[in-house]
């Protein structure tokens, strides 16, 4: 009898061991093939397309070391880093309490709670807080071997990249820097040609005429396959009109009036754009963008050989390009008449020019009929910054930096007195009482039976 028991017992032991082993193996397989689905309707657990592009193109391991206490910061960092780790095998992270492990903190010269160090590709990058954007830019910095340079022309009253005041471009410059570009000023008059390291030349809101020699430099730059970003304001004579016209772009001598903008709380003179063209940078772009005092652009009917132009952004059908600028200025009135161009009006164009050289390739040009939307005052409005950055990234060939969507949290709302009492009486009193009532009824029925 005892022998039999031992036999059974050992049989059970083996069965349990084998079964456990099978379960562990199944779990290990699942662990090594991670699959995560975002079930939220808002997509808040989904990384930006920009981040995913960066992670997809990672070819080295990145280790993120976050130094923080066991608190809210830690939770936040974990939420974001989990998404990164799920999205790429190359990213892993560790959260370290600097007070428990002071040696580690000292090794990486940690000064504040919440700082993080990214290690990879033989380099190190420090970020002040863990956020999707900071991680993106730090990973890019680990990845990039050489920085691309963006030149902003100066000397014609252009908006200044160092200017922190309302008309300046300092905000734009910082955004470009965080995408890891080098940003410099360019005085065309002093140079014989556009510098060779220029990935992009930007002309933002000039007020004075460009000299013919300067225009020639830009023209040469385009012919050699350069990238130009031009943003011009209405009623400014910059000398660039002829240059653009040669490429098939006509600047309107007008001002766009938009009735629709008023509905959104804006001014008639701030046309709103919610329709974007079919180009890489803006496919799926859903944000409204605002262009204070803009002029219309149009495409010539017959284009020079090798040039292809597409519209990038256009205003609503409730807008038009007002040509009676005198009346607009003096009386502040505008009315759609025969001379005016009825909306939708093109406000941004994208131009591709096939190069004559043997190797082929393209020069690319983006033109906007406004430069205010890039200024410190307006760039943070709605989707303006994303629009500008997407366009510049496209010109620079950095497709992975194009932003498509951002997350929105659903909002909070205060309770009305009626709602507040509903929130109390239904869950705290009504529901439990119903259960209690059913329970007592069942009890009584059973006792009677």
């Amino acid at each position, binding site marked *: 009898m005892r022998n039999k028991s031992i036999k059974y017992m050992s049989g059970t032991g083996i069965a349990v061991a084998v079964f456990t082993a099978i379960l562990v193996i199944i779990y290990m397989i699942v662990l090594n093939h991670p699959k*995560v689905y975002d079930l939220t309707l808002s997509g808040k657990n989904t990384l930006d397309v920009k981040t995913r592009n960066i992670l997809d193109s990672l070819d080295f391991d990145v280790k993120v070391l976050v130094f923080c206490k066991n608190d809210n910061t830690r939770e936040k960092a974990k939420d974001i880093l989990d998404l990164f780790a799920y999205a790429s095998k190359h990213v892993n992270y560790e959260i370290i309490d600097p007070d428990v492990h002071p040696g580690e903190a000292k090794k990486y010269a940690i000064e504040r709670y919440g700082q993080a160090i990214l290690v990879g590709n033989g380099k190190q990058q420090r970020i002040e807080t863990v956020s999707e954007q900071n991680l993106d830019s730090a990973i890019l910095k680990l990845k990039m071997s050489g920085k691309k340079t963006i030149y902003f022309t100066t000397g014609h009253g252009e908006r200044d990249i160092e200017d922190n005041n309302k008309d300046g471009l300092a905000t734009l410059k910082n955004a470009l820097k965080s995408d890891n570009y080098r940003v410099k000023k360019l005085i065309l008059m002093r140079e014989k040609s556009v510098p060779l390291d220029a990935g992009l030349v930007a002309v933002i809101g000039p007020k004075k005429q460009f000299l013919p020699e300067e225009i020639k430099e830009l023209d040469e730059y385009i012919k050699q396959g350069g990238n130009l970003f031009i943003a011009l304001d209405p009623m400014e004579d910059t000398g660039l009109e002829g240059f653009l016209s040669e490429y098939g772009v006509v600047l309107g001598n007008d001002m766009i009036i938009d009735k629709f903008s008023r509905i959104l709380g804006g001014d008639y003179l701030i046309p709103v754009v919610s329709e974007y063209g079919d180009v890489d940078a803006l496919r799926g772009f859903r944000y409204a963008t605002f262009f204070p005092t803009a002029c219309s652009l149009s495409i010539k009917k017959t284009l020079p050989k090798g040039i292809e132009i597409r519209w990038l952004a256009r205003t609503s059908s409730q807008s038009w390009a007002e040509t009676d600028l005198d009346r607009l200025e003096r009386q502040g009135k505008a009315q759609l008449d025969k001379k005016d161009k009825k909306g939708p009006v093109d406000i941004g164009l994208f131009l591709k020019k096939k190069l004559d050289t043997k190797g082929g390739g393209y020069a690319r040009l983006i033109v906007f009929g406004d430069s205010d939307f890039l200024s410190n005052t307006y760039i943070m409005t709605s989707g303006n910054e994303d629009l500008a950055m997407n366009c510049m990234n496209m010109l620079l060939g950095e497709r992975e930096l194009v932003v498509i969507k951002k997350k929105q949290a659903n909002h909070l709302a205060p309770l009305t007195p009626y709602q507040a009492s509903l929130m109390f009486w239904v869950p705290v009193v009504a529901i*439990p009482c119903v259960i209690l009532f059913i329970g007592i009824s069942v009890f009584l029925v059973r006792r009677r039976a």
Partner: protein
Amino acid sequence: MRSVYAKEMLIYFSSPIFYAVSFIFLCVLGIFFYNDMAYMSMLASRIAQYQLSTGLGLDKIVLRPLFSDMSILLLFIVPIIAMRLYSEEKGNGTIELIFTYPITDLQVLLGKYLAGLSVIAILLGITTVLMLLAGIVVSPDWGLVFSSYLGLFLVSASFLAIGVFASSLTKNQIIAAASSLGIILAFWAVGWFSDVFTASAVAKFLGELGIMEHLDDFMKGMLNVKDAVFYLLFSLFFLFMTLRILESHTWRG
């Protein structure tokens, strides 16, 4: 199996324990819910007053805390739901009768387990009223609500499997409930070790074993396949162990 299931369900709904447990569960949860909603309301008026733009939403202020409270309440309640499944039969001596049924141990076990799961599903079902109530004020992210409920159901299934296992060990229902609570708490605590020993293989292993760690992603609105698989395998393991215990009756005599 169907007859076992029907019998178990009938016992559940005619016993006072189910109603008492549900009453306490719903009452406590209702208070938590009211608190969270009141806190949200207070925050909302502050934010409006100072025109702050925060990333806060109903998800963070109400839903996530509420679901995490729910998981802890379930941790205490599921052992009580599970305690009688085998212990009662053992206490009454009807277990011997079961062994003579013309159905297998597995069928009996599944019948009992599914009955327990149905009771949990009904309890969770009742709590969806809270989501509808919250929806009157701010529409919640229904995807997140769905994934949280899925996670709660799966973790409860694991608790129940432990409960059934503990219930098969003893004829005393109180001991069954207490020991399943003990096992669950042990598997909860195991997960904390991963915070203490950072980045060692042992910490990682223990972290994977922690029963509550696998709920995190569900409550953020994510379906992480590994977490769902963990709960299924975890439940399977304890059901398998229960079968082995039942089997031992035949050779222990």
